[in-house]
């Protein structure tokens, strides 16, 4: 298992905005005379608090990568403001405290893994006396120690992703930006990365990441934002959103048979006999009282009542108004970065 950072304390409970954008916009001018305008990001306002794992969702061209590039000062905003750790982006203080893994990272292929980490470590401001041990440590933790003298042109995609993560955390960052980190990884690589993100977060690192694999994102993030065509459609706490989006309630009753509850057919969406239990799926707006009364009258008892929560994928498709079953360019398994 990867374990790329140590020495940080437990997750800080005090919440403070670590990443903040206010009306952040990016317009590209295209064409020979640069007269055509294309809006890549429109007035993005959001904030990410300390210790969060923030998931950034959106189909192709939504503006996710544009947002990350703006925060990493790879491109300049057309308007708006953004700050990281309380400093305006571009402030020299910011980038010694953040780590960044670009989408499909590419590194100097003439360097070895060890040379790359030493070089980027020096640029990140890692003190010379600690650099060699830090590089060795990271190479070991990333499972690349044996390949440390291999030029990066000989690295597989998974190995490049791991060296990318190692360079992103070389300076013990307080905030980590990951752009489509699960892209192209096999199931083992995805699981390792998930564990690494969780571990870093437990150590207090705030993580801001975009992903096209919604199931991974759902299992990791506390808060999310959905971006579509450069505009923010929704953002908030994942738990609250999933509860809010819940439209069905599951009632499980014991000591009762399906035939005894047939009078409820008009009320429930689905009724299933499982052993000596009956499972009712009830629309949220429907009255539960009649179900409870009917079950008790038949000599049974209610065992559980709980809302059936939708998946993040369902929430996502509802937000961008694309039916999840319909064939589309957007799919939960295969969206590439924007």
């Amino acid at each position: 298992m990867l374990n790329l950072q140590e020495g940080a304390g437990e997750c800080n409970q005090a919440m403070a905005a670590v990443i903040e954008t206010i009306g952040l916009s990016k317009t590209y001018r295209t064409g020979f005379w640069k007269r055509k305008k294309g809006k890549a990001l429109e007035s993005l306002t959001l904030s990410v608090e300390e210790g969060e794992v923030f998931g950034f969702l959106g189909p192709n061209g939504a503006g996710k990568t544009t947002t990350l590039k703006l925060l990493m000062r790879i491109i300049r905003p057309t308007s708006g403001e953004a700050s990281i750790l309380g400093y305006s982006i571009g402030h020299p203080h910011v980038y010694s405290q953040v780590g960044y893994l670009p989408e499909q990272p590419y590194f100097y292929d003439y360097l070895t893994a060890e040379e790359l980490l030493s070089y980027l470590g020096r640029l990140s401001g890692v003190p010379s006396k600690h650099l060699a041990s830090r590089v060795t440590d990271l190479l070991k933790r990333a499972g690349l120690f044996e390949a440390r003298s291999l030029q990066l042109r000989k690295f597989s995609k998974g190995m490049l992703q791991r060296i990318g993560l190692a360079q992103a955390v070389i300076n013990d960052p307080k905030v980590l930006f990951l752009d489509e980190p699960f892209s192209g990884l096999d199931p083992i690589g995805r699981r390792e990365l998930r564990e690494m993100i969780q571990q870093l977060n437990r150590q207090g690192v705030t993580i801001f990441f975009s992903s096209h694999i919604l199931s991974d994102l759902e299992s990791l993030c506390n808060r999310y934002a959905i971006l579509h065509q450069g505009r923010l459609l929704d953002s908030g706490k994942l738990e609250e959103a999933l509860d809010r989006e819940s439209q069905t309630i599951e009632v499980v009753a014991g000591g009762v048979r399906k035939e005894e509850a047939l009078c409820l057919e008009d009320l429930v969406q689905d009724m299933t006999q499982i052993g000596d239990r009956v499972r009712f799926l009830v629309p949220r707006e429907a009255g539960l009282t009649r179900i409870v009364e009917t079950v008790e009258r038949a000599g049974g008892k209610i065992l559980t009542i709980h809302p059936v929560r939708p998946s993040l994928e369902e929430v996502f498709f509802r937000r961008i108004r694309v039916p999840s079953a319909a064939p589309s360019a957007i799919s939960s398994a295969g969206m590439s970065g924007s």
Partner: protein
Amino acid sequence: MKVLWIAGNTFRENIRDKVLYNLVTVAFLLVGGALLLGELSIGYEMKIIIDIGMASVSLTGVLIAVFIGISLVQKEIEKRTIYNIVSKPVSRHQFLLGKFLGLLFTLAVNVSLMVMAIFAALIYLNGRWDWSFLNILPATLLIFMELVLVTALSLFFSSFSTPVLSAVFTLSLWVAGHFNNDFLSFAKLSKSPVAEFTCRLLYYLLPNFSNFDSNAAPTAIQQAGYLQTPEPVVLLAAFAYGSLYTVLLLAAAAGIFERRDFK
């Protein structure tokens, strides 16, 4: 310090780049050819070796300065390796300066190796080392200063243009710059005020590469051929001019680079 790390990495990249080795091979072949040619020119063997050797130093240096110079930054943008640099606590002008110094270091190593090859050829002809061989060094320094300016031009053009156009612009200016003094002569001869103004403007605006060779009379390169050194004032003037022009070009490149988006 970060500038030096970037310069060091650029040097390492250049050394591991096969193009550089090819150019050095071409230069060694030229010096070898000069040795053969020297055998045929009775009494002028050493002069021919120095002349062809210095021309090789200059030509290969300019080719490296232009073709590696234009890709210094462009390659980093195209391959997106620049993402890993600008997201670190490194300013864009530090990056640009580091890349520039890295290529200069490569050129310095290249020029030094070739000068050593010329010395070897001279010892071969002369039968022993002679301290007067060192008199070719001032001309070598002038060539290096010229290469500094060509590198700055390449970097300046590549900060806003495509690699092909940058190469065309840089090579055109390098050629035009060698005839820069002719613009002044045209201005003096011209009867049209517009033509005179244009010629004078071009004379002052374009980099004057003749400062590094034919401007000195007798020229530094010619003197080197006879193992003579130029006047110190010629060297100082050329260095002052080259340094000032280079600083202006780098400042302009940094200004453009600072506002640029890396897509």
